[in-house]
């Protein structure tokens, strides 16, 4: 019979390593969750990206001439890759939490010895993985389209820069998904954030158009959109050119990552785990 005070090492000897194992268990759960519905989570976004490439890249792209001499298709591919990463990272973490609230099993995370840090990083790295997976497929499809049009392949100009912005962007949007979903009290609230805030930010962040093509007034407004720097960071990594100062993009990206991590921590502390 157990009837005395336990120290943390004694507890870990009874149960198991609490430093890494709980995080790993949740991360594996999240990965399996999206892989179990791979048609919905990976192939649907892939179809969307293919349609964008077909309509904007191939059809309309022929009549669009950019000032910097890039083909519109080459300009579009990094934007679509980052859009896939951001959307999927957000959707993975937010849908996991929201469906957990609906099914009631989100409360499990509250009654087990998972720390807030472990929950945030397990959910956001899993979201990032899904984002990178869809982003990679989008890139490969983009390469096929590019090869058809240009009879050539896009080569990655700055792989490390590309990787930094993809990872940072995926983590930011996964942590945004965590924040929104923990605060949300209904499905509507999550989808409203997606439709009314994220989609406009992404679409106006320079996926489809160059900042230089905008009226100076809208150029200045766009500079307050952090997604602009994420997308242009990826464009710089892939093409070696972008519309913003890449150093500023690094700073904005890191600052946004720190901000959204803090917001996610607060959401876990003050948001709710209870079922709807």
């Amino acid at each position: 019979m157990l009837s005395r005070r336990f120290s943390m090492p004694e507890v870990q000897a009874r149960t198991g390593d609490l430093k890494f194992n709980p995080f790993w268990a949740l991360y594996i759960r999240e990965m399996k969750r999206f892989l179990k519905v791979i048609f919905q989570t990976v192939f649907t976004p892939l179809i969307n990206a293919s349609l964008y490439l077909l309509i904007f890249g191939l059809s309309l792209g022929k009549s669009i001439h950019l000032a910097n001499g890039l083909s519109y298709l080459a300009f579009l591919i990094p934007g679509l890759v980052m859009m896939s990463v951001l959307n999927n990272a957000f959707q993975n973490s937010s849908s996991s939490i929201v469906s957990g609230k609906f099914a009631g099993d989100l409360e499990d995370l509250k009654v087990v010895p998972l720390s807030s840090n472990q929950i945030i990083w397990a959910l956001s790295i899993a979201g990032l993985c899904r984002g990178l997976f869809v982003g990679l497929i989008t890139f490969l499809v983009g390469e096929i389209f590019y090869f058809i049009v240009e009879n050539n392949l896009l080569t990655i100009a700055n792989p490390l820069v590309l990787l930094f912005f993809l990872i940072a962007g995926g983590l930011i949007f996964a942590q945004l998904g965590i924040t929104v979903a923990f605060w949300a009290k209904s499905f509507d609230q999550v989808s409203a954030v997606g439709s009314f805030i994220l989609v406009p930010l992404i679409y106006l962040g320079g996926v489809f158009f160059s900042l230089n093509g905008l009226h100076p007034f809208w150029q200045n407004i766009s500079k307050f959109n952090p997604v602009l720097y994420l997308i242009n960071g990826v464009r710089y990594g892939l093409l070696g050119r972008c519309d913003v100062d890449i150093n500023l993009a690094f700073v904005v990206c890191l600052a946004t990552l720190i901000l959204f991590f803090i917001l996610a921590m607060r959401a876990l502390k003050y948001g709710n785990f209870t079922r709807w």
Partner: protein
Amino acid sequence: MNLSPIEITNLVKKYGDVTAVADVSFQMNPGEILGLLGPNGAGKTSIISTIVTLEKPTSGQVCVFGHDVSKEPRLTKSLTGFVPQELMHHGYFDVEEILEFHSGYFGRLKNKEHIDYLLKRLGLWEHKNKKVKQLSGGMKRRLLIAKALVHEPALLLLDEPTAGVDIELRESLWDFVLELKAKGLSILLTTHYLEEAEQLCDRVGILQKGELKVLGPTQTLIKDLTQREIVMSFKEAAPEIVSHFLKEKKADSLVFSVPAKMSIGELLSSLKIDLVNLKDVQIHEGSLEDAIKKVLHA
């Protein structure tokens, strides 16, 4: 030092203007089954929710094996298994996967042997590859119990574990709970089934509107708070008797209501009845239900 598995001191839990738990204090003894009873809204689930940190106390302190759940939640959660009142679904995962993940949350990534034991002991082995939505209500309930035990906790919290479960399964779960107690687990139980509390609990606490009205050993409470009903049948007409224990007089029988502690001998000697005329004596002992009614209607 013999530490209490649960020690609650002046716990208050408010939801807006509603006080769900009003200044409740109690201690659990190591290795006992303690039952919390009371009508809906009495505060049973709120108390359990504060122990597992699903809810924060408005004031007061909750300790598990001497550790404050607000200050050392990961440690107290590692020692605690929790079976919630409501069933849950778990979406895309099957029974075995759910237990593997849950075990991992407690730091046990490789726990197949114990998971297999729980699956077999709780009759889920044949269903281990099914999704939760394919399980019956009773199976879902057993899955919740398996989840709570997957890390071999020292303290088990059962929030109405047999709600909506058929009689056969309920009795098999009772056996399992007693088996866990024999292994040294301390168990806190809330239930609406008073028969369950009477059979399982070493002590019970009765809650009403957030207040702990009474707490004590189950049999002692029954004895202290209930009356025995004694029916005496006579060969001829029932004699004329004057006694404040007399509850009802019929043509050939008398019904007495006496304190549970009072023996039949004490009653008979106080009545001075002619025993030759006495045909039969039937005794109906008070139940936990009677004890609860007395507390709640006091």
